[in-house]
């Protein structure tokens, strides 16, 4: 752009830099599956969906904890399940060389998936 587009704002470059990071993350977070990378492309897609479901389950669990209806035993079991699930996801991400950022697909006008 030829003109300055900031009408008002902080001169703190950190804020602007953070925004640029977000923009580059959007470019990186598009699914790119082709004949050469079909394995990792599909792994990214599948793990993204698993991660989305895992986060939904986690949120639902937190709502139940907040509601105060769970017994100590149930909280124990919930903690064990969620922790193992998270650890397994970490293993899979490591195996397919994916980061958290890779699993947050950009849905264009709808924003990020997570």
């Amino acid at each position, binding site marked *: 752009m030829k003109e300055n*587009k*900031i*009408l*008002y704002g902080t001169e703190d470059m950190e*804020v602007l830099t953070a*925004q640029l990071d977000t923009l580059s993350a959007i470019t990186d977070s598009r699914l790119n599956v082709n004949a050469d990378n079909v394995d990792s492309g599909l792994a990214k897609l599948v793990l993204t969906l698993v991660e989305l479901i895992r986060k939904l389950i986690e*949120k639902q669990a937190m709502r139940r904890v907040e509601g105060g209806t769970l017994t100590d035993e149930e909280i124990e*079991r919930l*903690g064990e399940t969620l922790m193992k699930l998270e650890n397994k996801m970490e293993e899979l991400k490591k195996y397919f060389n994916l980061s958290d950022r890779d699993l947050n697909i950009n849905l264009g006008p709808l924003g990020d998936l997570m």
Partner: protein
Amino acid sequence: MHKLIYAIIHAKKESVCRLMNFDIGIQGIKGRELSAVSFNDIWAVVSDAENKDSEMNNDDALEFAAVTEELSHMFTLLPMRFGSLLKSDAEILKVLEKNYDAIRNNLIKVEGKSEYGLKVFRNSSDIIPVPELAEVKQAEGNSVYKNYILNKFNEYRADETLLEYSEKLKTEIAEHISGLNAVIKCNKVTGGNNVYNAVLLLEKEMTDNLTQTVIGIQSCHKELNMMLTGPWAPYNFVDITLK
């Protein structure tokens, strides 16, 4: 040779003739000549383009945005998505003809208006306090699983508090801006310290009023940093799917 479409403008014939005669000194990407294809009072501003793959790099995208930007100073326009290619002028004419009503309706909606972006950031991540939660503090003797849940619960409460804060801020900003007759579209926050992220459509001559309003809101919130950008072409306020 394909045709790359930059924008669809609403203009009288004479002003577009000036554009086609380069009186206004705008060139397309890679220095290519701009031309215009018209149907009634709407015009697609185009340049030649080789093919999609060779013209999809970041430099081209920036040049493309700069052309749209220049055009937006002169015309009411609907910006096209970067990479909008058609095979010929005749094909563009067909699209204009087929979508004339939808294009005109959108042009009327944005006539004389510009888009502005407003983002709000917290100064630091702990500026909005999470309520003290005695019951979820880690206690000695808790199992690793219970502590895991308690940590997750703390994170959940922090997120919820931030969400609540963002919603309040949204209402407050909408109230302040209501006098400017603006259309506000709130987008998802971008993460980190971002607590508000919106685009606004309002009359071009209201730019100073908007800036003053934002400064007013900022003065009430020392814990926040506001960033107002614009004027932009109305990228986020075009509601059209070309057939």
